[in-house]
């Protein structure tokens, strides 16, 4: 094999970057051609990614990596490079595929927007950065792209900059994820100083931490792992840094699908998977990951039950699903996590794009104002339904297989984690049922001007729906192909029947209850809210987390800033002013001395000489 596609993997992010450059250079003038440039750019990446992926599947080739020196300081070298492994090639396909579909979809969705070419430029930049992140062979390069995708997310969330909510959401998205980035940055610094030869590349990290009783002590390992996890928590919207993700729904819906469901938010999971040996070397870190993941899964799902904004429900669902992935990682199953990431990317993108289609048609995001859309928006309804089933973990849809893998892995580790996961799955099914039935079933609440979206939007839905059905079969309990491909190990036996039964049962139960409440009406809708209003209210207000942060962090910080400001004005600057003032006071004293009375002058002089004489002569006696 003289050349392989992998050697050209660096081109994958370059295509969208080129698209970004062209779009930026063209400026506003590219309303018509702009989208096409974006689409072609991502298409090229998709094709190349598929080639790489197929190449790896057929040959099962060695990992390919190549790096150049980015920065040399004295004897220290920092390099930048890319690496193609099975894991990265999988991610490449996911990212390019979703990105391509979203590009196509956006051409319809954003048709009427003035700044459509800017939108496509941002998306291209994001895609490029995300691909760069995926391809990075070392943590520093990874971090660089990690931040870049954050910025793109920020830009796209705030795309409709004139909306105050969008502005606030963009700001929040950036700042909250930055908290996580901080952790990652410190972890990076720690790694740099503790790794032999200051190596930061994943291969070396893998080797160093996989060696039992390695060079780095357990304490430091735990610290590094936890700090990396903080980064992942920020990016993947895990508790307690999840608050930005639902707010980020202020961005255009295709963005929610691309960035805040399928790709960027999964980067946290990808990060943990990439640096998994560090976590494996520390039990504490693993436990933390698992607990946080499980807690986030149930926590976000429970909030999702009480939301009314279609995108927010999906956002909390994303948070919850990312929690599942973290849980999987925490219990040691990289393949389950990646599997869920893989399937989730498709069905969640599908759901978001579907939601976008709904919003496009219904001109509202509040599910209480919708209803009966299934009649007018048939394709949307069908594809959305498939996505919902996939998410709810109903076989044979993709979500079932991956969620099942996670639950099985959890059960292997700890019963409580499994229980939590199962309950969360129940919630998931319930809120999806509520969402689906409220939106598509029942009578139309609007004046019937809802209409099906154009084909440029529905075709991606259909493609994603198909993927949501079939994607799960790459790794069933019966044939763990994906896991083997990813980890290079023999498939684990996670296909315990109990798990499967429980998983399907809670899913169906959730849907059934949802059906009872929202379609059949056997149970009153306010059955819970009338009995436990506080509970519902707490859920609606997302456990008051935002308020709590505002009270505990934002407000004190602002007051502290004001106090510091006052300190700066009155103390630091005050001392300066005081020095100036006392100097001129001395001058004024002198002016007063110059009273015009010559005898006073002489007296002053006399007193002066006496004091001087006494002081000089007298200092000997003290």
């Amino acid at each position, binding site marked *: 094999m003289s050349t392989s596609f992998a050697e050209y993997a660096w081109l994958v992010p370059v295509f969208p970057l080129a698209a970004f450059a062209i779009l930026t250079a063209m400026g506003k003038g590219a309303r018509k051609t702009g989208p096409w440039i974006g689409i072609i750019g991502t298409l090229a990446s998709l094709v190349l990614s598929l080639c790489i992926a197929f190449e790896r599947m057929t040959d099962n080739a060695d990992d390919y990596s190549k790096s150049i020196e980015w920065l040399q300081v004295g004897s220290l070298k920092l390099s930048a490079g890319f690496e193609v492994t099975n894991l990265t090639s999988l991610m490449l396909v996911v990212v390019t595929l979703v990105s391509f579909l979203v590009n196509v979809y956006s051409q319809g969705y954003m048709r009427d927007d003035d700044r459509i070419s800017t939108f496509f430029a941002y998306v291209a930049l994001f895609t490029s950065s995300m691909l760069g992140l995926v391809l990075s062979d070392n943590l520093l390069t990874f971090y660089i792209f990690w931040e870049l995708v954050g910025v793109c997310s920020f830009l796209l969330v705030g795309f409709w900059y004139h909306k105050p909510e969008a502005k606030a959401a963009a700001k929040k998205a950036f700042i909250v994820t930055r908290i996580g980035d901080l952790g990652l940055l410190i972890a990076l610094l720690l790694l740099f100083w503790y790794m032999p030869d200051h190596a930061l590349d994943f291969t070396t990290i893998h080797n160093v931490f996989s060696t039992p009783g390695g060079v780095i002590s357990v304490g430091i390992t735990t610290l590094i792992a936890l700090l990396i996890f903080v980064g992942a928590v920020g990016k993947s919207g895990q508790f307690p840094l999840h608050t930005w993700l639902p707010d980020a729904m202020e961005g255009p819906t295709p963005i929610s699908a691309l960035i805040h469901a399928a790709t960027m938010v999964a980067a946290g999971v990808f990060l943990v998977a990439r640096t998994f040996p560090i976590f494996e070397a520390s039990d504490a870190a693993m436990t933390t990951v698992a607990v946080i993941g499980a807690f986030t899964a149930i926590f976000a799902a429970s909030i999702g039950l009480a939301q009314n904004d279609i995108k927010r429900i999906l956002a909390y669902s994303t948070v919850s699903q990312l929690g599942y992935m973290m849980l999987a990682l925490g219990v040691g199953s990289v393949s389950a996590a990646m599997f869920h990431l893989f399937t989730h990317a498709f069905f969640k993108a599908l759901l978001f794009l579907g939601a976008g289609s709904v919003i496009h048609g219904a001109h509202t995001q509040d599910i209480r104002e919708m209803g009966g859309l299934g009649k007018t928006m048939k394709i949307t309804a069908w594809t959305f339904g498939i996505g919902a089933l996939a998410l709810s973990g109903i076989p044979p849809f993709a979500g079932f297989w991956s969620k099942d893998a996670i639950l099985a892995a959890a059960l292997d580790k700890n019963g409580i984690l499994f229980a939590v996961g199962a309950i969360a799955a129940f919630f998931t099914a319930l809120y999806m049922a509520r969402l689906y039935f409220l939106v598509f079933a029942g009578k139309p609440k609007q004046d019937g001007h809802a209409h099906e979206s154009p084909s440029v939007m529905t075709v991606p839905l259909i493609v994603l729906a198909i993927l949501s059905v079939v994607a799960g079969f790459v790794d069933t309990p019966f044939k763990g192909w994906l896991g083997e491909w990813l980890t290079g190990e023999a498939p684990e036996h996670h296909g315990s029947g109990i798990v499967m039964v429980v998983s399907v049962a809670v899913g169906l139960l959730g849907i059934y209850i949802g059906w009872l409440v929202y379609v059949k009406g056997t149970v009153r809708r306010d059955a819970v809210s009338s009995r436990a209003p506080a509970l519902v209210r707490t859920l609606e207000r997302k456990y008051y987390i935002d308020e709590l942060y505002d009270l505990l962090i934002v407000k004190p910080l602002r007051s502290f800033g004001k106090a510091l400001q006052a300190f700066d004005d009155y103390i630091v600057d005050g001392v300066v002013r005081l020095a100036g003032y006392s100097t001129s006071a001395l001058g004024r004293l002198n*002016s007063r001395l110059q009273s*015009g*009375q010559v005898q006073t002058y002489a007296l002053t002089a006399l007193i002066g000489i006496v004091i001087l004489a006494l002081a000089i002569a007298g200092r000997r006696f003290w």
Partner: protein
Amino acid sequence: MTMLASYLTLAAVLFCVGLYGVLTKRNAIVVLLCIELMLNAVNLNLIAFSKYGVTPSLTGQIFSLFTMTVAAAEAAVGMAVLIVWYRNRATVNVDEFDELRG
């Protein structure tokens, strides 16, 4: 040496009286006179040293002659200035010399 000491004491007293006068007297002419008094104290000193000093010499007396001459000239100028001022302001009260201040 007692002689010298007493002269020196007298001179010191004169000097202080002169200085006191300069500092306190309201009449400008008296102030000028008091300066003369201070200079005369110096003269007394010089002459005393000239006669009773460690190494008596004529120099002290010569010095005092110069001093007297100079003092006279100074007094003359002082008076002249005072007259000009009196012409402008019709007073010789030192307290009222306060146009320049601040």
